[in-house]
C-alpha cells in the first residue's frame, strides 16, 4: 500500500472505490456467526417477515465493516482515528454493494495531520444505505 501524503491530497479527491459484489444469504450467515449477532432476521426468512421485514436483511454492522474497508484500503488501519456512520436503509441478499469515499477536509490537530473523509455504501439502485465519515492521520 502506498500511503497517501498529507501535502499531496486535496479536498474532493476520491478514494479507490470498493465493489463488494452481490450480498448472499451465506455471506450474511457467515457474518452472523463470526460477529455473534445471531438475530434470526439475518438468518431466517420467516422470522424476518414476522418482524415486518420483506425478508432477510444484512446486519448494519456487516455493512459498516464493509465500509471500513474503503478506508483501510487507502491507509493502514493504524492511521484510523475515527469511523462513524448512519444506517439509512437496509441491504438484502441479491443487492450489489459498493463503498465510496472522498476527502472532505484537511487540518492539523493535536500535532497530527488529519484528513476528514466522507464515506458511503450504496446499492445497485444507487441508494445510499450507509452515510458516514472517517478521520485518518497522514504524514
Amino acid at each position, binding site marked *: 500500500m502506498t500511503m497517501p501524503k498529507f501535502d499531496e491530497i486535496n479536498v474532493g479527491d476520491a478514494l479507490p472505490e470498493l465493489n463488494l459484489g452481490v450480498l448472499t444469504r451465506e455471506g450474511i450467515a*457467515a457474518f452472523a456467526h463470526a460477529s455473534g449477532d445471531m438475530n434470526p432476521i439475518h438468518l431466517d426468512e420467516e422470522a424476518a417477515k414476522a418482524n415486518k421485514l420483506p425478508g432477510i436483511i444484512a446486519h448494519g454492522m456487516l455493512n459498516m465493516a464493509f465500509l471500513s474497508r474503503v478506508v483501510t484500503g487507502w491507509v493502514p488501519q493504524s492511521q484510523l482515528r475515527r469511523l462513524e456512520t448512519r*444506517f439509512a436503509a437496509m441491504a438484502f441478499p441479491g443487492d450489489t454493494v459498493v463503498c465510496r469515499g472522498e476527502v472532505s477536509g484537511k487540518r492539523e490537530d493535536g500535532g497530527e495531520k488529519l484528513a476528514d473523509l466522507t464515506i458511503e455504501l450504496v446499492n445497485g439502485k444507487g441508494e445510499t444505505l450507509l452515510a458516514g465519515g472517517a478521520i485518518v492521520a497522514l504524514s
Partner: protein
Amino acid sequence: MDNVAPSGLTFDEYVGKAYEPFSGKVEKDRLVAFSKAIGQSDPVYLDSQAAKAAGYRDVLAPPTFSFTITLDAGQSFNVLDDMGIEHASSVHGAQWFTYDAPICAGDTISGQQSIKEIFTKKGGALVFIMIETPLKNQNGEPVATLGSTIVVRRG
C-alpha cells in the same frame, strides 16, 4: 407521549446509568472468521506471522470488531431489555468508533457501557438512546471507544 419507558422508569432516570464492567479474551479464530466474513484479504488480519512482521502482537482486529466484543459481553442492545422495550420496535440508527491503539488476537479487552443521552422526537413517538463503551486492553491502555444510537418507535 410520555417520557416513561415500559419498565416504569422515566428515560431521564436511565441517563448516566453504567452497566456491569466486563472483560474478555480476543480469540484468534474468531478474529480470522470475522475478517473472512467481511472479505478482508490483507494478511495482517489473517496470519500471525504477517501481523507480527507488521509490528502487531498477533492478527489485527478490523475497525468494527470491537462491536462484537460488546455483543459477546451482552452490552449493546441490552439497554432495551433493561427498559422493557421490544427489540423489534427498535433500529440501530448510527454507530461510531474512535481509536487509540490496536486490538490483536490474545488481548484481554475490558469495558463498561453507559447511557450518555436519551431524547425524543415527534412528540415522543421516536426515542433516541445514545450509549457509549470505552475499551482498554490487558495493559490498561485505552484501545477504542464505541458509541451507538438506538432508535425506538413508539405508538
